[in-house]
């Protein structure tokens, strides 16, 4: 979705981004910093070494309140949400009736009667309309447009947060707490999209800049833009909606079968269950794979993937250079017979077929918090 520059929305941290020298670009209808003066390479490495602060306020935050919101939401996602304990967070996808992916999202159970969802910026209007259309009569749906969302990611995130929020360092991975950070009421999830330990912190919009400045003043914390956010999630093997997953890809093809719990596999009852359960049983025709080019040339999105005879197999959906890998990396879809790690492929970059291999993902090992 492209929006003319004049109608760009801004996040509550807009002035701070500009003060920090952020290079602002249009993204999903918002003016967002793609990088700061440090640059994408440095911001990426700083996150993996310390703690990167990301403004993800453009993402959609929604609460679903009902007697049993988990049962209602299970009519829209293939994940086991009824089985989610209070205070826990789960990654899932909204599926379409034909088994494609409408969006990917984080679902947190604040209580038995209230779920908190975080969805992609570019999809948030459509997601909310979808929720209203399917659940509107049965649940109280609220868009939290008056809240900002900050992500603090990296090996130093826990130590930084512990000083501002009691118990943050002991909070389990994929859990949520309704708490305070530096005295500011906040929903804190221990999650993120970089492969690192970290937090996503939802605060009232008018408190966001205060919190961001406070965090940035702490040792090891640096501002990180969308450019490094993308290279970090790519190294972590995580999907970008609109590139690696979309309405044409099923969760099974995308390698997201793990989000479909055993009960949901047995019972179905989610949109697209026909296709998705069939693909689980029989295997999908194509799969999302990680790819490492042999050489140094990055293969970008839409690069053609061929077999060794030059027959087209599919295309790269995300690709670039991994600063922590110190080399190029890509993901894309290939027929299932070519999905085994070690399979040799070619990537056609500027007309030249370059040797590459299918590799297991993540490209860079996840370092999520494993305590508690």
């Amino acid at each position: 979705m492209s929006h003319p520059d004049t109608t760009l929305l801004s996040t509550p941290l807009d002035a701070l981004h500009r003060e920090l020298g952020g290079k602002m670009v249009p993204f999903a209808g918002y003016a967002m910093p793609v990088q700061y003066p440090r640059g994408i390479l440095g911001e990426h490495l700083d996150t993996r070494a310390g703690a990167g602060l990301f403004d993800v306020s453009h993402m959609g935050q929604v609460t679903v309140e009902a007697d049993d919101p988990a049962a209602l939401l299970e009519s829209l996602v293939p994940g086991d949400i009824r089985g989610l304990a209070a205070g826990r967070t789960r990654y899932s996808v909204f599926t379409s009736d034909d088994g494609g992916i409408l969006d990917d999202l984080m679902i947190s159970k604040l209580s038995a009667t209230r779920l908190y969802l975080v969805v992609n910026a570019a999809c948030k209007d459509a997601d909310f309309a979808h929720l209203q259309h399917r659940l509107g009569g049965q649940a109280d749906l609220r868009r939290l447009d008056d809240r900002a969302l900050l992500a603090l990611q990296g090996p130093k995130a826990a130590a930084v947060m512990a000083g501002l929020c009691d118990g943050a360092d002991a909070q389990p991975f994929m859990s949520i707490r309704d708490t305070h950070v530096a005295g500011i009421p906040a929903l804190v999830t221990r999650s993120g999209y970089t492969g690192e330990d970290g937090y996503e912190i939802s605060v009232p919009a008018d408190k966001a800049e205060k919190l961001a400045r406070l965090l940035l003043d702490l040792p090891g914390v640096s501002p990180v833009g969308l450019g490094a956010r993308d290279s970090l999630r790519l190294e972590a093997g995580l999907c970008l909606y609109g590139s690696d997953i979309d309405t044409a890809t099923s969760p099974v093809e995308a390698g997201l079968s793990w989000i479909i719990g055993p009960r949901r596999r047995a019972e179905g009852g989610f949109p697209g269950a026909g296709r998705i359960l069939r693909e689980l049983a029989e295997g999908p025709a194509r799969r999302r794979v990680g790819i490492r080019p042999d050489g140094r040339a990055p293969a970008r999105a839409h690069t053609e993937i061929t077999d060794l005879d030059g027959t087209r197999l599919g295309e790269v959906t995300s690709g670039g250079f991994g600063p922590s890998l110190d080399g190029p990396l890509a993901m894309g879809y290939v027929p299932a017979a070519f999905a085994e790690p070690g399979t040799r492929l070619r990537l056609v970059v500027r007309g030249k077929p370059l040797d590459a291999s299918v590799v297991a993902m993540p490209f860079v090992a996840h370092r999520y918090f494993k305590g508690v």
Partner: protein
Amino acid sequence: MSDMRFTKDHEWIKVEGDTGTVGITDYAQHALGDLVFVELPEPGRGLKQGDECAVVESVKAASEVYAPASGSVLKANDALTGQPGLVNESPEAQAWFFTIALSDPAELSALMDRAAYDEYVKGLE
């Protein structure tokens, strides 16, 4: 007096006799960000002014480099292949891309001199 000439696409060419040395400007490297890959033309390749002759890639994107003048490539700066970041560090000196035997030196008159290029860049900011 500088013998460097500049294109609107932010390449520079330094001319000595009928040989040119080609690179990208400080403005270009700054706009591109940290470079992680550089692809250079093979020696012997014939280029026309404006042809795509090299590729530079940052973490985020690939960009084309265009030949500032016509001629035949003499030598590529292979140091850049192993050390693309040199383009960020020393864009207008150490990180030259290739040398070229000029086939039509008269073309150079259409390019900007340093003062005109500086003025042009100011207009972009």
